[in-house]
């Protein structure tokens, strides 16, 4: 009994727990022995070269992809083939996609209220009020009655974030949220994400933008010749975040995810780090997003 209690307490603090997780696509071993723990309120960036399995990893967290072995526990619910658990996890976990995936046949407001009404069984009025609240939070309440096709990419992505937030999720997953955007729209989306991070949301963000690059190194270096070189570079990248010497250096937890097959890495940043955009390098969203403010 006491032990169960203890476990309950631990799981209260841990938002996502992945143990020895393996995932194959047919015979292709994409993710090997992944271990990862995300505490509540933690913001994690997963970076790595294209095709390394970043998307697959976070899609396993809300079971858009099925893992073949190991355990994934999200918010105290283990993901198995049990549909009830899957639905529970999905309604607790919001996801933002690279290509927004808004529903083009519905207005912005309908996009936002659909899931609360049908999944949460919220009354329509209440769902609309919540939707307007979050639209204001992402700063586009005036677009509520338009269709997604009438909005710019940046606005669409902010709508997508608001749509996830309307389900009041406890965890948010972002799969390259800015990769499909023009540079001038990246900032507005990042501002929204920063605000969300400041509100204490548990967030996992995938990017192949290597913002944490060693001084002077180009992100392109990562896609260099051999796989060994890539690993080595990536590791250094993790350990030496791209900040100028005059800035305080954030302390990444140097525990890359174990992914022997492909070079997948996670940067962990925990602790009371108020996030602040570093306006000096707008094209490097992750560096500018996760750096510590000057003290």
């Amino acid at each position, binding site marked *: 009994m006491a032990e169960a209690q203890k476990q309950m307490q631990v799981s209260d603090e841990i938002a996502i727990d992945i143990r020895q997780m393996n995932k194959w696509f047919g015979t292709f071993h994409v993710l090997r022995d992944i271990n990862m723990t995300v505490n509540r309120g933690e913001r994690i960036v997963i970076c790595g070269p294209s095709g390394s399995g970043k998307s697959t990893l976070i899609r396993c967290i809300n079971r858009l992809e099925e893992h073949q072995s190991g355990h994934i526990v999200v918010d105290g619910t283990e993901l198995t083939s049990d549909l009830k658990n899957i639905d529970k996890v999905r309604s607790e976990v919001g996801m933002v996609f690279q290509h927004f995936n808004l*529903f083009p*046949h519905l207005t912005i407001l309908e996009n936002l209220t659909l899931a609360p009404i049908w999944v949460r069984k919220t009354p329509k009025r209440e769902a609309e009020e919540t939707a307007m609240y979050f639209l204001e939070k992402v700063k586009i309440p005036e677009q509520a009655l338009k269709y997604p096709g009438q909005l710019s990419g940046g606005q669409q992505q902010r709508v997508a974030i608001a749509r996830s937030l309307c389900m009041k999720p406890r965890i948010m997953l972002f799969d390259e949220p800015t990769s499909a955007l023009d540079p001038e729209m990246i900032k507005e989306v990042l501002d929204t994400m920063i605000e969300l991070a400041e509100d204490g949301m548990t967030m996992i963000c995938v990017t192949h933008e290597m913002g944490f690059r060693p001084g002077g190194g180009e992100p392109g270096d990562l896609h260099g010749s051999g796989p060994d070189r890539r690993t080595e570079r990536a590791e250094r990248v993790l350990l030496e975040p791209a900040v100028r010497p005059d800035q305080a250096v954030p302390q990444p937890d140097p525990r890359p995810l174990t992914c022997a097959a492909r070079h997948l890495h996670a940067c962990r940043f925990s602790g009371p780090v108020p996030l602040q955009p570093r306006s000096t390098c707008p094209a490097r969203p992750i560096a500018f997003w996760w750096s510590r403010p000057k003290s």
Partner: protein
Amino acid sequence: MLAHPFVVKALSGTIPFRLVPIGSDQFGGFLLAIVIGITAIAASLPLGILLALGRRSDMFLVKTLSVGFIEFIRGVPLITLLFTASLLLAYFLPPGTNFDLILRVIILAALFSAAYIAEVVRGGLAALPRGQYEAADALGLDYWQAQRLIIMPQALKISIPGIVSTFIGLFKDTTLVSFVGLLDPLRGVTQIVRADINWKGIYWEPYIFVGVIFFLICFGMSRYSMYLERKLKTDHR
């Protein structure tokens, strides 16, 4: 006033008209074409959607049955099915079952166009980006909610031209029912033209008349589908 037994049964319960039931062999003309056409169209759309979903299903049995049904129906001429409906079914059904000929024809016409609709709708489903399914899943919608609220509204919109083509084809195919002894508009015309000496020399006139009416109805359907497409257009690109 003449009416078909169904209609008589349905109406006499509610409206105290004096309707004389007539058999399928006397019920005819455009009313027949329209009755068969509309009922079969109304029945074939939902059936076609289910078949399309079945064909894309992960469940082996559902998928096999749907594929088998669609391929069988599409591979066999409608006329064959109609003869089957009028003759063979009578052998297979227990003796004494009075299964009306028009009802049989309607069921077969509906099954026939459902197979085509299924393929048209499947095309619409395939045209949807995978992200739409993923977004619906990620929001926690279940399979039927996702289909009803997200997938079908978009897939059907894409499929409108194909669906309406199938409907038009079905409507025109209702003239084939004359082969199993029903009085479709053309057959009615033929009988009249043959019976009356006054039609000699201008026997083509009634055929043109029938053709014009069919054209008007089909053209109407086609315009309506274009109107629907315009009305449902929300991508604004």
